[in-house]
Structures are given as structure tokens and as C-alpha cells.
């Protein structure tokens, strides 16, 4: 921190820890007022939209999974859905349920990783899970066991937990037999207890008050908690406005990106306003569609009823949880739900007649979106008559959340300053916590496409 004579100072955190990828933070404070909060994503650009051009229509699932080793299934399935949409193929029935099972595996391992290894140490005052394991060995062992079960689901269906190999257009290269799934069911039954205990454990954490001023965006699917498909749905920040949806094919009309000078990522806006995707948004949009036991878990965690239905006591709709610190509660509930859902799918599993349905190439444009652990992940591809990619666009959740995260930072630091807390170490720690609340995946964020030069450049104040 530098103290300049005009009572301006800059707080900078050159490298954030316990996030996936590389990002830095810079705050400008003038006369005890936060005038600027910037998350500078300096993850090296890898140019995925460019290297996809000219590739075969079968390749985006494997290619884009390399954007993020933390949520490869999300990339594979968003890509599959977008390509299948362009080719006029709808994968449903048993194959769709098997995809959901695979995705549940990724939700379990990825959200558990965040809860135990990245987020919980903030609440308990540890640097990392190793330190936490010395004071809370039973909790850490449970977290690792739960994460391992999520990995086991992905490994059984896909061969390995990072960049699984069995996903293909139209379904899978190979589907498991009922017998092969049986040991997974046994592990998932143990995981059900572990996930319940996780909810109870995080419910005991101390949650500072905070509110994220942003519209919430998540996919919605009739009758089920949306994971691997759905329609983009918004719960506005202004509570006087009802929830609304828009067709996926119009995603880029609503969610627009602009390039900022301090980042290799772009900032997104939803119809010009800040928006947030991820667990808080999913709970607001689909919470009422969780299973009865998952809703019990949510109540046990101290979460209010989901907003989009009558409350349990009949007094009306529940409230929207907008406190990012409490996102860990929703994540824990989602892990519990994913374990339940995985068990349900395995119990009802009948091996599909064929591991995949054919997806012949054709020219056209397709859109696909799924709920990655960190939020809504959108893919759009255009193909020529040969089935070659002519254009690709990927909008990951962290890019959408960046504006909301920066606003969160500004408000949190301002509130701390107003309380008279201005020690650098304290503010830095607060900022890191605020950012980790949103589980940003920086690897996902560093590749964007924006050809609209008119809107691409907010007035630069010089690179950080």
C-alpha cells in the first residue's frame, strides 16, 4: 500500500491464493471512499475461440474441456449441447440421464473442493486444508472422502476425473453396465451421510452480513433442479419485478461483453446491468425443485425457503439469499442434492440401447448452456457445410460474475472503512474472502470473443 499526500491510497494484492488461476486485485481509496475496485485477471490468454476455427464439429467437447481442468465436464457437455443444437439432434432419455449422472459427479467433487480446500479455511482462520486438517482432522477427512466419491463417479463413466475421455457428441463412447455402477452406489450411500454432515458443519460457520446487488441468472428446467440443460432465467435484484426467461438462442443479445484494459477477461452485463451466476442464482431460480430431503438440508443450514414458491409455513414466497458469504451453504446443499440425484439415477439405470445417437455434421449455428459448478456456461458455434467450425463463442460464469465481484469488493471495503477498519492486512484478507465467496475460476475467464469495437472500450484509466 502506498500513502500519497492527497490522502489517496492504493491497496493491491498481487496474487490471490486459493482460487483456480491467476488474478490480482487493486483498490483505489480516496478520502476514505473506495473509488475503484479492480480484479485484474492476468491468466495468459490461450485463444480458444481462435484455435477452434477450422476444427471438425466433433472436436469442441475435448478441445474446450482444456479451458478448465476444474470443470471439464461442464465444458464437454455445454459444447455437446451447442453442436447437437446446430446439427438438429436432441439427446434425451437414458443417455441424457447418464450425462446428468456424470455432471453430478463433477458437482460433488468440484463443489466439495471449493467448500473444504478453498473456502472453509477462510471461515476457520487457516491458510489451507493442511493446516485445517491439524485442528479438524475428521472434517477434512470427510471432505476428502466426499470429493473422492465425486471423482469416482466421473472416473467410472469417463475414465479419469480431469478431461474424461468417454463423452462424445450424441452421448458416450461407452456406457457402463448396471453391475459396474453397483460399487458407486455403495460409495454414494456413504457420501449421503458425509454430504449431510457437511451441510451441518458449514451451517455453524460465522457469516458476515453482505448483499450482492445484482440480477441472478441461472438455467431453469421444468420439474427439476437444472444442471445439464435449461432456459436462462433471471431473478431481478429489484424485488418488485418478477422472474423472467429468455430463449437460449438470444443469450448474446442479453449477455454482452466488453473488454477492459486491466484484464485478459471481458466483463459481461445482462441487459446493461450487473448479474451473478452460480449457486446463489441457482437456488433463487430452482431451489423449489430440490428434493424434499435437500430442502430439509437447506432449512437445517439456515437458508430461507427458495423464493419461487409458497413458504413451508404458508406465509408466502421465501426470500432470495443474496449474501455471498452464505454461498457455501448453498454449495453444501447442492452437493447433498447431487449425491441423492446420482444415487437415484444409478438405482433406475437401464443401459442405453446404443452408447450414442449419431450427430451428422451440417452447416448452421447452435447454442448450448449448462450449469457448471461456478455458474452458467454458454457455448455458441457456427459450422460450414463441411462441418468445420467457422465461429466460436464461449461465455464462462466467472466472466459474467466479475462485475458483481468488483461491486461486492467496493461495498465490503467501503463498509469496513466506515466502521473504522483500515489496516491493510485486514482489508486484504477481507478482499480475498469476498472474492473466494464467488469461487472464481480464472482459467475459465481468460478467453473471450468480442468483435463489437464500439462498445469494447470503456475509458481506460491506464493499465494497473
Amino acid at each position, binding site marked *: 500500500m502506498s500513502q500519497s499526500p492527497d490522502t489517496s491510497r492504493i491497496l493491491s494484492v498481487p*496474487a490471490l*491464493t*486459493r482460487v*483456480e*488461476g491467476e488474478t490480482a486485485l487493486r483498490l483505489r481509496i480516496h478520502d476514505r471512499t473506495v473509488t475503484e475496485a479492480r480484479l485484474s485477471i*492476468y491468466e*495468459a*490468454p*490461450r*485463444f480458444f475461440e*481462435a*484455435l477452434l*476455427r477450422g476444427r*471438425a464439429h466433433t472436436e469442441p467437447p*475435448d*478441445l474446450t474441456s*482444456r*479451458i*478448465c*481442468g*476444474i470443470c471439464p465436464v461442464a465444458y464437454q457437455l455445454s459444447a455437446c449441447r451447442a453442436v447437437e443444437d446446430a446439427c438438429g439432434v436432441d439427446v434425451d432419455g437414458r443417455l441424457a440421464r447418464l450425462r446428468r449422472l456424470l455432471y453430478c459427479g463433477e458437482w460433488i467433487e468440484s463443489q466439495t*473442493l471449493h467448500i473444504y480446500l*478453498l473456502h472453509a*479455511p477462510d471461515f476457520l482462520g487457516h*491458510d*489451507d*486444508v*493442511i*493446516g485445517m*486438517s*491439524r485442528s479438524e482432522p475428521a472434517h*477434512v477427512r470427510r471432505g*476428502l*472422502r466426499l*470429493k*473422492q466419491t465425486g*471423482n469416482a463417479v466421473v472416473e467410472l463413466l469417463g*475414465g*479419469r*476425473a*480431469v*478431461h474424461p*475421455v*468417454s463423452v*462424445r457428441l450424441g452421448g*458416450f463412447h*461407452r456406457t457402463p453396465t448396471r453391475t459396474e455402477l453397483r460399487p458407486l452406489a455403495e460409495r454414494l450411500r456413504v457420501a449421503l451421510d458425509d454430504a449431510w454432515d457437511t451441510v451441518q458443519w458449514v451451517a455453524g460457520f460465522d457469516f458476515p452480513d453482505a448483499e450482492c446487488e445484482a440480477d441472478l441468472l441461472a438455467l431453469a428446467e421444468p420439474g427439476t433442479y437444472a444442471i445439464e440443460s435449461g432456459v436462462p432465467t433471471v431473478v431481478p435484484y429489484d424485488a418488485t419485478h418478477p422472474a423472467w426467461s429468455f430463449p437460449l438462442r438470444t443469450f448474446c443479445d442479453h449477455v454482452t461483453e466488453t*473488454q*477492459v*484494459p486491466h484484464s*485478459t477477461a471481458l466483463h459481461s452485463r445482462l441487459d446493461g446491468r450487473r448479474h451473478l451466476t452460480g449457486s446463489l442464482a441457482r437456488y433463487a431460480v430452482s431451489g423449489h425443485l430440490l428434493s424434499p430431503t435437500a430442502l430439509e438440508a437447506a432449512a437445517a443450514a439456515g437458508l430461507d425457503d427458495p423464493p419461487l414458491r409458497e413458504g413451508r409455513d404458508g406465509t408466502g414466497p421465501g426470500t432470495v439469499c443474496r449474501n455471498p458469504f452464505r454461498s457455501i451453504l448453498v454449495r453444501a446443499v447442492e452437493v447433498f442434492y447431487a449425491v441423492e440425484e446420482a444415487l437415484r439415477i444409478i438405482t433406475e439405470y437401464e443401459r442405453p440401447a446404443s*452408447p450414442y445417437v449419431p450427430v451428422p455434421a451440417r452447416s448452421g449455428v447452435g447454442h448450448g448452456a449448462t450449469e457448471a459448478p461456478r455458474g452458467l456456461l454458454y457455448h455458441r458455434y457456427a459450422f460450414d457445410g463441411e462441418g468445420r467450425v467457422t465461429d466460436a463463442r464461449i461465455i464462462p460464469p466467472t466472466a459474467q460474475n466479475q462485475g458483481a465481484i468488483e461491486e461486492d469488493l467496493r461495498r465490503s471495503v467501503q463498509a469496513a472503512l466506515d466502521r473504522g477498519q483500515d489496516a491493510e492486512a485486514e482489508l486484504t484478507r477481507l478482499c*480475498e474472502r469476498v472474492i473466494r465467496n464467488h469461487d472464481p475460476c480464472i*482459467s475459465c475467464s481468460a*478467453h*473471450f470473443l*468480442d*468483435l*463489437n469495437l464500439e462498445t*469494447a472500450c470503456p475509458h481506460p484509466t491506464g493499465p494497473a
Partner: protein
Amino acid sequence: MSAPPAPSRPRLGVFKFASCDGCQLTLLDCEDELLGLADEWDIAHFPEASSAVASGPYDLSLVEGSVSTPEHLERVRRVRAASRYLVTIGACATAGGVQALRNYAGIEEYLATVYARPDYIQSLATSTPIAAHVPVDFELRGCPIDRGQLLEVVTAFLAGRKPAIPNHSVCFSCKRRGNVCVTVAHGVPCLGPVTHAGCGALCPTYGRGCYGCFGPADTTNLPALVPLMHRDGMDDADIARYLHTFNVTAFTAVEEEGPG
């Protein structure tokens, strides 16, 4: 880490360049071994997993990702200087990764495709392996690396011996696993005969042809494989795309050298 390190424990560093984070995540995926590993090693630098970041020197540095930006050029030298042993993990670090596809296109075109204001973006024209810049003590292949192989490498360096990592092709692993050959039995194009082992022949086990994510084996005869792939319905452009993906620089080198 949280407790002051016992002086006897060797110090481990984990470093990231341009990558997807999947290879360092593999370390966190060693759930059963993770806490044991933390007893054996002082995990001094692993920002993704810990807020406690200690400066060097490190006895063993695991380096993920490729050299892609001007800042990387400097940092890779600093990491090397601070490390007794430096091991690169994954296809980005060992071959430049999928982002090395830009080496064969124009960086200006790539920048203009993705960014409206390329002048804000710091990027080198190429994505290159760590070994192109500094000496490397061992390269662990894979996109992503295999968890078992990572543990073998970390254990071997702890014991002061050479890691027991085989150099043969995927076909050997396939036979050991008892798989029916997907090419011979089903006419599925497969890069197994020219690809480095390490994954445990995953793709053929799942009824899929190997797509080369561990890069070329130490000795390959690519020209002998091409007619088979033609027979199974691939044209030259398909074969080129197949080879030019996650280990594009390594397979390109093999193509240029001929059989070796």
C-alpha cells in the same frame, strides 16, 4: 504451511504458467495421499491450495503450463534459479499445450479473433514448453497427467532415485489391460501405436481410439500408421488435425523427423 516447517522436510513448490490448472488439480486429487504428502514435504509454494506462500529455495518444483507471455519468460528463470530439481507436469509444460496451435497460425489473427483491443493483451507469438527456456530435470507427460505417475515422480525425487515412468507406446498398456484392439477389431482410428504410455490405455478401454494426449512415444513409426488411418476413413486433413491438438509441437517434430 500453517505450522512452522520441520527443518528436515524437503520443500515442494507448485508453479503455474499458461494452463487449465488440471495437472496441479491432480495433486489435490490424491486425496488418500494428500495429507501424507504434507507430512513428507513442506509444501512451501502452492497458491491454488494455500494462502501461505513461502519464497525459495525449493527442493522440488512442479511446473504446470507453457511459456506464453513476456512475464513468463522472466518468471520461468526465477523458478529455475530457486529450484534444486524442476519437473514439468502436463502437455502444456512439456509441449506447449493446445494453445501452441497459435504457433502455426498468426498471433495477430488470433488476437483479433478473440479481443477487440489486442493492444491491451500481453502475449507472446508462441506457446512453448518450459524446457525451451530452462533446463528441466524430468518431464511428466499427459493432458492431463496421471495421478499415479505424479505420485511416483514425487516419491522418486524424495528418495533420490529416477522415476519409474515407462517410455513405450499406449499399445503396450492396452495389451496389459487385455483390451481388444479397436483398430484391428472395429476399424477405429487410434494413435495408440505412436503415443506415449501413461494413461493406462483409457480411450481404447472405453471403445475409443487414442487421441494422443500424452504426446509421441520415444520411438515412433508414424508413416506406418498413416495407411491404416486412411483405411479407416481418415483423409490427410483428418490425420493432421488428430496429431495437431494437445501435443501439437511434439507430434509436429516427429512428423518432420520421420521414423525414429
